[in-house]
């Protein structure tokens, strides 16, 4: 059913550290790999080796430039996937009931055999978290690797989303954001984790940790002239070359 369930006690989600992310896109690739080989329709590519490549991704890394008023610009890598919103607008708009939010852990999923591929859920999502697969004709989105996190056939350390497992910088954290004492909740409280587009009232479960304040960098002054009245070979050479026609004094 596309009616949202009452808020679950357990809220599984991701915490993404914008301070630590190095923008390597490893999470993008591991996500595409796992989700192409496992649950649901594969994430197809169109013209992958041609002139106009395009494909379905559940996780994409943007890079933003932030220009403070009095300091050098910062480059911030910004991974973005489904935020598993508590008030998920993508769920309630679905005409078929294919889109749903799980009662037990709050994960937002698509039942692909019920999806008619109308695309309205992607229109309703402000974050661009849903992509209609051009090959399968059904809506694809982050499953929070629901087929990994509860999978007892995997070693325990692998029972987390592929993106989290693969991140070499440790910029992605997975856990229960409904539990105030969980590691992820503590991290959010400690670092001032925030919501994306809070004004839209979607109440995202995933949180982003802001970049830590940078050391105050003194703006570089132009290099001073080393020696106006130089002596020695280099100075003689400078004077001699400057004296030639076209040379600068």
């Amino acid at each position, binding site marked *: 059913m596309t009616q949202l369930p009452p808020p679950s006690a357990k809220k599984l989600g991701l915490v993404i550290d914008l301070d630590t992310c190095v923008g390597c896109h490893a999470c993008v690739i591991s996500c595409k790999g796992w989700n192409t080989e496992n649950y649901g329709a594969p994430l197809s590519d169109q013209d992958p080796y041609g002139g106009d490549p395009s494909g379905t991704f559940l996780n994409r890394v943007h890079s933003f430039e932030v220009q403070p008023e009095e300091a050098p610009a910062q480059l911030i890598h910004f991974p973005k996937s489904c935020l598993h919103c508590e008030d998920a607008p993508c769920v309630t708009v679905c005409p078929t009931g294919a889109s749903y939010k799980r009662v037990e852990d709050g994960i937002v999923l698509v039942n692909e055999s019920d999806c*008619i591929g109308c695309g309205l859920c992607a229109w309703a999502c402000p974050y661009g978290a849903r992509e*209609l697969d051009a090959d399968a004709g059904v809506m694809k989105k982050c499953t929070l690797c629901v087929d990994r996190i509860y999978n007892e056939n995997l070693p325990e350390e692998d029972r987390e989303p592929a993106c989290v497992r693969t991140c070499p910088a440790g910029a992605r954290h997975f856990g229960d954001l409904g539990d105030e004492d969980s590691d992820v909740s503590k991290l959010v409280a400690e670092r001032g984790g925030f919501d994306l587009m809070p004004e839209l009232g979607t109440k995202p479960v995933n949180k982003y940790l802001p*970049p830590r304040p940078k050391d105050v960098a003194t703006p570089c002054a132009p290099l001073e002239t080393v020696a106006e009245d130089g002596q020695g070979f280099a100075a003689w050479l400078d004077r001699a070359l400057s004296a030639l026609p076209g040379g600068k004094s």
Partner: protein
Amino acid sequence: MHPAPSVIIFTTFSGLGFGLLFWLGLGVIAPTGFAAFIWFAIAYLCAVGGLLASTFHLGHPERALKAFSQWKTSWLSREGIAAVVTLIVMAIYGAGLVFAATPFAILGWVGALGALATVFTTSMIYTQLKTVPRWHQPTTPLLFLLLSLGGGALLAGQVSLSVVLLIVAAAVQLFAWYTGDKRFAQSGTDMQTATGLGDIGTVRAFEPPHTGTNYLMREFIYVVGRKHAQKLQAIALVLGFIMPIILLLIPFSHIFAALAVLSHVAGVLTLRWLFFAQAEHVVGLYYGQR
């Protein structure tokens, strides 16, 4: 937003068809026999043709029946139900006129109400989206309803009714264009709220996630639509409203009436194209484009 032809054709023609069904149901025109058959055929051709066109953009149209199940939350589901109920009720009402020359007035009123409900639910599919600030305002359903009623009256040959409705619709459309231009800024969603990085400084999209395009960019970012917006607005205004009104006000002839309908349809197609092409989705912010 990408102006998909299937959705433009759907909203334009089903709007006209259900508008005509509304006036037929109210009994403003109550033809009988073969004439009634022609009237209803025109209305059903528009309404059903439009609905069928809307299935062309589905990834899996064969599962369309499932779309009737989620009426509790989904405007798209409600629209499907309203459309089918209205078409069934009006088919019975129409059969009464065609075969028995008897208008079952109550059925007609129920059908007319259903036609209004169908157009309203269609408009709410767009109006509900907070992600598209230009659509998320009361003028959207008002305009869909006025255009449907005005176009329906025009199809039904109701001169004074359609002139009045078209003038009101044109005024609301002008107002919607005027306020629509300011909606994105008023929505409070910008690069700062999208990224949460505004406390540090001015945010600019530096590098997109991939060098190529993707579904989101194709679907939601349509910059070309805004380039000629003003010219297209003028064309839509002339074709959709001014021409039909002039053609209706000069002494009546069937050719002028037909031209008025054709001009109006072309105008509505233009403004519906703009409705999509001009609308900006907030996801474009992440790409530094709208």
